[in-house]
């Protein structure tokens, strides 16, 4: 696997123009992958390891913002959401965590591990039929992660894990899209499409893809290997404080 080049932090689109420019010496690592692939178990194992290595770690997760998590859960329990309102709720949740969790932690020099990032919205929206360009413009306020680790799996291997785990869920099976005659059928198609989309995004955005079918410990050491590689590169380059890590703005 190629080494991961370090680079100055950049906004995905227009960023947050009203924020004063500050150095962001921390590291933003996003873990992506479809539902049930084992992201949270892996993240739980990463934290103690990084702390032993001497890094302070901060976690953030999709739909976990104090401002919106209740609203999102409530909305998912009802039948009111459209692709558009769904996406905007995700974006609001993301922006809340970006400004109140991610950026302050990066300023303080933490490693931020994000359980899912904007690519989740890109993948889901694309499968749900939203205008992909629109989704990307909405997430123009996002900071581009330093490293995206993608837990890759095929639907066939995913299914038994989900069934033995928490079971097939209405939304994660894409039942709202009425894709199949029953839950299983729908899950298979919806997750299949999601995974196809993630794989496409992986190429487009340069994710580091790891085989999520590996046993937990092996997968964990794969992830650690990539993170260590990234960190050693980042430390070589930015330690002398020559590289200014303030996020810069750029546009597609």
């Amino acid at each position, binding site marked *: 696997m190629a080494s991961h080049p370090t*680079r*100055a932090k*950049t906004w995905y*689109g*227009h*960023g*947050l*123009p*009203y924020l004063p*420019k500050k150095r962001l010496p921390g590291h933003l690592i996003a873990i992506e992958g479809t539902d049930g692939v084992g992201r949270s178990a892996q993240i739980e194992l990463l934290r103690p390891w990084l702390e032993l290595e001497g890094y302070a770690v901060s976690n953030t997760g999709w739909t976990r913002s*104090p*401002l*919106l998590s*209740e*609203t999102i859960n*409530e*909305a998912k329990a009802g039948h*009111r*959401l*459209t692709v*558009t*309102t769904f996406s*905007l*709720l995700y*974006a*609001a949740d993301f*922006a*809340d965590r*970006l*400004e*109140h969790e991610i950026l302050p932690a990066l300023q303080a020099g933490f490693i931020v591990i994000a359980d899912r990032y904007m690519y989740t919205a890109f993948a889901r929206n694309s499968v749900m039929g939203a205008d992909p*360009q*629109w989704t990307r*413009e*909405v997430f*123009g*306020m996002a900071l*581009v992660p330093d490293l995206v680790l993608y837990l890759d799996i095929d639907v066939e291997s995913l299914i038994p894990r989900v069934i033995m785990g928490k079971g097939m869920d209405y939304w994660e099976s894409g039942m709202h899209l009425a894709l199949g005659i029953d839950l299983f059928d729908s899950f298979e198609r919806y997750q299949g499409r999601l995974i196809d989309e993630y794989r496409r995004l992986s*190429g*487009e*955005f*340069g994710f580091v893809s790891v085989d999520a079918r590996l046993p937990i410990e092996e997968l964990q050491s794969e992830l650690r290997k990539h993170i260590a590689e990234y960190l050693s590169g980042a430390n070589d380059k930015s330690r002398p404080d020559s590289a*200014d890590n*303030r*996020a*810069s*703005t*750029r*546009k*597609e």
Partner: protein
Amino acid sequence: MPEKDRPVIETAGSPGGPAAPELPAAVPSPNGDVIPSSTGSKSAAGTAPKTLLETPHPYRGRLICVEGIDGSGKSTQLLLLERWLRSRGYPVHFTEWNSSRLVRRSMQRGKKKNLLTPTTFSLLHAVDFADRLTYQILPPLKAGMIVLADRYVYTAFARDVARGVHPEWVRAVYSPALRPDLTLYFRVPIDVSLERLLAGRAKLKYHEAGMDVGLSTDPVESFRMFQSRVLEIYDQLTLEFGMCPIDATAEIPNQQRVVRTMVQEILRDYDRNRGSGKNGVTSHSR
């Protein structure tokens, strides 16, 4: 361009390279000037076909919006218009900014605990709008009704940009919005609106006064500074989107006369008796 291949543009000092599209700072200057986003070198949006906001909608109904700062008297005028339309037998549907229950709790929580940033403030209002677009605006429009909207996307374009979000970003967020048939902009000097608001109730609301922006700790002074920014942007939007400015310092009945004349104009070829066509789309384009 694939993400990994994108050039990194340094914030300051670095030449950036000729390939890097220039991004103007969107932060409003202290005197309230908001530098509009690059009009000449729009990358993705500029080459795209016209947005919905620039294209007349195809539905049989009519969408009439009122805009203006707080205390401009727009809601009063809309109420008088609604009375008049109903008395003449028109099917009318009223919808108001920030009224969807979908984000009510988050909005209240965010405002009360002062958790909102310019971006989340903007996005929560966008959820509200998108929800009302689906449930309150599109169905009556397709059914051939007259939709009256108290505030529309221009409120976001003015207020959120005054709070510091990028003008192009907020336009992109609201790009599912339809173009109104008529947007009435009630133009009023800050002092007049302040006088009206303070006469009506003792205190200015926190966000209405732009207290979250931190321009001044005095609510009245903050209102003056923040709403001056908003006014200035509204003036630019009037040109950009063809809003019809109305002198909101005039006597109420005189304003209403102007409003009704303008509404009559857009109702000229409106046929309230036509049955619901397929999908509510008119056969001829207006």
